[in-house]
């Protein structure tokens, strides 16, 4: 297209720009002079000739600019625009800083939340072809997903035609002895192909080999990367070494890669093969494993589910006692791992998005106001020869500068917010959410932030550009102000404020509902007194010390030693502490009642004699356990109120008997008491039917202890642990926590808390931005109408009437904003129903509270401009123009 030497000549001109300008001006001046002379020769007066020549020549500035554009590089005009934009922003630092901060806030919040969304929902799990992995479990009538029993697992593995491989895992714990120190560590038992199914290769040593998980197999262990580093110094010659777990020597065969994480067993340090069947695994009816499988090529999740359902049906016919009503649950592994956090994250992302929108709208209205005051400047530049395209580019450049600054600030803010949020997750919750480790400023997050900034930029560039494109420049030059266009744009500003108020209402209502849910959750009726309660997990790791009589003796010893500590009011031993899990369930059958093989699922808990009294649980009728309720006496049980209501409606349960599904004589127990419901499972789970047994009847090597303290339970904890450690070196002591910490740190509470705090934070910011926006619009409207107000007053309007007029204008905007906002919040809250606890989406008190809160703030915001309007001096106002 361009001839030879074009680029070189252009480059040469770049360095001779001043000479070029001078020469161009000189020859254009010469041209005009010659023209004028020619006209004079025709008889025109000199002055007239000069003017005519100038007209005939055209706009000199524009010609000069166009000549410069021909020889100039594109970047030069961009640099010019940038310089000009910088000057504009520097001239008005208040505007620049406010706009940048608002944008940084909006971009930062949404980018930070997106970081979590990316890590949890977008980035794949760290397994080979993770989309082909499924979570496989059994299902029962009441529970769509329950553990799988070892016998069922072995049958499913043999019989299925849709899975490339099926493996199982469950949690475990060992007392790890290194030198003279014994420490309890979390572990997982897995079937031999577990890591192979996930597609994970040890970085050191080897994977388990097929058959190594069989009963009586060699004791081998694979280490997590973190454990290898922290406990074994990252030694590369570790493979083949022996390590003492519960006193047994295990051979280390491998070390897992650093990025390996398996959320369902997040805290596991050691991975061992299944090996011997524990008592539960010897029965087909006892479910203690979870399955993970890789689908065969071309098989869908629903095909696999149908296949396993069919097998479950066959097993139910074959083993009616244990398998009646047991089905199969198959879902994508990612769904199982992140399904629960998805609604929370999406809610937060929506909240952050709304905040961003409100920030952009606010900056837009600021720009709108500013463009109003820059109308003359723009008109002058237009008259001096700036083309509309060039003016438009100037706005885009300014918006670009603001957006870039906002983006930079936003990314810094996002990094800060992400690490702050990550630190808010307690360790136990973080272990179940390994994606948290991937929350950082990565390419996805930066691109997201950039995209958001570009959208914000477009919005900001369009507002003033559109605003000015419609106007005719001559009109603005001659005078500006009270034109139809002015009114239209003032209305647009008002409409933008309504949008802001609506968003603020939606966020406030969401925060209100989440806050109320959190309050309800933390104040749910626990059935016991959670304060001043120190708890600790215990296990007897020495297999030679686990006979019932030995364990009873251990309980007695612990009881005596801890009770003797100063500040102890009471203590109790139990199999599971309250507010832990829906777990340890059993099927019951009541003699004399109709039974058709259904599964009457109830929770089981073993408790010591003083446990209920110490907890502060309320005995409704009958008696508590005593020390004498041991295996030398008939088995007795205390049931909770829910169980009494469900299985003994309208009867007195005390004195009744309960048995297992076969009513085997040895399983029969008599109900001796009814206790008010104790919240045993998660806070948001409704109380389930629960049976309590005497700890002394069937002692277990794994147990927990709770101590009621007179003083601070947190201070007492270390002393408790120290005392327990002196009782026996084989006694593992771990998981010490106060009940209040346990409740506040439970995943349910943490998730509710995080979403309530975050949405609350967004809502407060939205409230501030919305109110500031309202103030801005009303104040601007008053300043634009100063003359009108002056006229009104000159004609006799009272100050109070002017005051009312302005308040009415603000009031209208507020009422519309609140009304629309409340309607939308009901829709929005219904969408986040799964996050609410004990609150309905249309909780009138919350909505009313939000409405009045915003109303009050809006009133305050409009009070100042209304006051200013009523103070207008009519004489000055009329003279001003």
């Amino acid at each position, binding site marked *: 297209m361009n001839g030879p030497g074009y680029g070189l*000549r252009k480059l040469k001109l770049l360095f001779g720009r001043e000479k070029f300008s001078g020469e161009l001006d000189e*020859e254009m001046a*010469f041209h005009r002079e010659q*023209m004028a002379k020619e006209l004079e020769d025709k008889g025109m007066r000199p002055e007239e000739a000069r003017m005519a020549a100038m007209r005939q020549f055209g706009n000199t500035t524009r010609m000069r600019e*166009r000549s410069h554009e021909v020889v100039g590089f594109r970047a030069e005009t961009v640099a010019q625009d940038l310089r000009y934009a910088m000057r504009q922003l520097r001239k008005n630092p208040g505007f620049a800083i406010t706009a940048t901060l608002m944008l940084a806030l909006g971009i930062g919040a949404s980018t930070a939340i997106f970081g979590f969304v990316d890590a949890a929902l977008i980035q794949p799990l760290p397994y080979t072809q993770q989309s082909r992995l499924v979570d496989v479990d059994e299902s029962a009538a009441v529970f769509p997903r329950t553990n799988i029993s070892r016998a069922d697992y072995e049958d499913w593995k043999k019989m299925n035609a849709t899975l490339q491989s099926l493996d199982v895992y469950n949690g475990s714990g060992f007392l790890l002895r290194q030198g003279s120190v014994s420490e309890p560590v979390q572990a997982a038992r897995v079937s031999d192909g577990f890591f192979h199914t996930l597609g994970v290769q040890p970085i050191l040593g080897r994977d388990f080999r097929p058959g190594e998980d069989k009963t009586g197999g060699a004791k081998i262990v694979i280490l997590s990367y973190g454990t290898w580093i922290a406990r074994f110094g990252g030694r590369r010659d570790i493979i083949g070494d022996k390590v003492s777990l519960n006193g047994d020597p295990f051979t280390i065969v491998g070390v897992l890669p650093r990025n390996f994480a398996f959320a369902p067993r997040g805290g596991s340090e050691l991975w061992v093969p299944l090996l011997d069947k524990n008592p539960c695994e010897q029965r087909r009816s006892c479910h203690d494993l979870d399955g993970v499988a890789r689908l065969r090529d071309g098989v869908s999740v629903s095909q696999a589910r149908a296949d396993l359902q069919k097998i479950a049906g066959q097993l139910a016919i074959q083993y009616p006692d244990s398998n009646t009503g047991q089905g199969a649950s198959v879902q994508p592994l990612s769904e199982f791992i992140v399904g629960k956090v998805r609604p929370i994250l999406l809610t937060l992302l929506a909240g952050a998005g709304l905040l961003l929108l409100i920030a952009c709208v606010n900056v837009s209205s600021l720009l709108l106001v500013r463009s109003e005051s820059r109308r003359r400047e723009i008109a002058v530049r237009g008259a001096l020869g700036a083309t509309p395209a060039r003016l438009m580019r100037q706005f885009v450049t300014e918006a670009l500068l603001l957006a870039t600054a906002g983006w930079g600030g936003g990314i810094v803010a996002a990094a800060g917010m992400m690490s702050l949020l990550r630190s808010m997750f307690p360790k136990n919750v973080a272990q179940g959410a390994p994606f948290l480790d991937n929350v950082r400023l990565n390419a996805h997050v930066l691109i997201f932030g950039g995209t958001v900034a570009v959208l914000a930029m477009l919005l900001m560039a369009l507002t003033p550009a559109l605003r000015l494109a419609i106007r005719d420049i001559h009109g603005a030059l001659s005078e500006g102000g009270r034109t139809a266009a002015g009114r239209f744009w003032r209305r647009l500003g008002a409409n933008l404020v309504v949008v802001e108020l609506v968003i603020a209402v939606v966020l406030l209502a969401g925060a209100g509902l989440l806050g109320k849910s959190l309050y309800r959750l933390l104040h749910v009726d626990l059935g016991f007194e959670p304060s001043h309660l120190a708890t600790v997990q215990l296990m007897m790791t020495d297999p030679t010390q686990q006979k019932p009589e030995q364990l009873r003796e251990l309980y007695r010893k612990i009881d005596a030693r801890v009770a003797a500590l100063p500040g102890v009011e009471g203590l109790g031993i139990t199999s599971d502490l309250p507010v832990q899990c829906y777990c340890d369930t059993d099927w019951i059958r009541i003699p004399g009642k109709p039974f058709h093989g259904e599964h009457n699922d109830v929770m089981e808990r073993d408790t010591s004699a003083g446990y209920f009294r110490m907890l502060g649980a309320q005995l409704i009728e009958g008696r508590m356990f005593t020390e004498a309720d041991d295996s030398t006496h008939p088995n007795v049980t205390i049931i909770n109120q829910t169980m009494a209501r469900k299985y003994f409606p309208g009867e007195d349960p005390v004195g009744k008997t309960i048995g297992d599904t076969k009513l085997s004589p040895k399983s029969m127990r008599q109900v001796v008491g009814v206790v008010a419901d104790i919240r045993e499972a998660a806070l948001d789970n409704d109380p389930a039917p629960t049976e309590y047994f005497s700890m002394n009847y069937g002692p277990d090597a794994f147990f927990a202890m709770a101590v009621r303290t007179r003083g601070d339970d947190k201070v007492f904890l270390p002393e408790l642990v120290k005392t327990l450690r002196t009782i026996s070196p084989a006694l593992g002591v771990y998981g010490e926590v106060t009940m209040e910490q346990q409740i506040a740190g439970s995943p349910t509470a943490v998730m509710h808390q995080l979403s309530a705090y975050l949405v609350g934070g967004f809502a407060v910011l939205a409230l501030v931005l919305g109110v500031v926006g309202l103030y801005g619009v009303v104040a601007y409207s008053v300043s634009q109408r100063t003359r009108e107000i002056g006229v009104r007053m000159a004609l006799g309007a009272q100050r109070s009437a002017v005051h009312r007029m302005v308040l009415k204008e603000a009031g209208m905007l507020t009422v519309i904003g609140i009304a629309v906002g409340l309607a939308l919040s009901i829709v929005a809250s219904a969408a986040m129903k799964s996050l609410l606890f004990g609150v309905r989406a249309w909780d009138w008190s919350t909505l009313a509270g939000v409405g009045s809160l915003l109303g009050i703030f809006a009133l305050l915001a409009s009070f100042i401009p209304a006051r200013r309007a009523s103070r207008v001096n009519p004489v000055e106002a009329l003279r001003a123009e």
Partner: protein
Amino acid sequence: MMAEKPELMPGTLDLLILRTLKRAPLHGYGIAQSIRRMSDDVLTVEEGSLYPALQRLLLQGWVKAEWKITDTNRRARFYTMTAAGRKQLGVEVSKFEQMVEAIGRVLRDAEEAG
């Protein structure tokens, strides 16, 4: 205000300048005068727009510029056509003729149809 002038077709200004310079080197004013005279004042352009066009021709290497003294003893920049410019003129002329012919055809067709 002056009467509206017929607008130049885009690109024709370059052609007119080159055509004018074919006969003799001229300064900007001279080029404008010459175009005015040759076209019987029909093609009076906003004369200032010569200058951006001249910069373009200079960059393309179709003309050369030199400061000289005029007959009236004034300093002025004189533009001379280069060999490349002569070639370009040929190209531009044939392009222009093609276009005129095409437009003519369209107009004739439209008349016949109407």
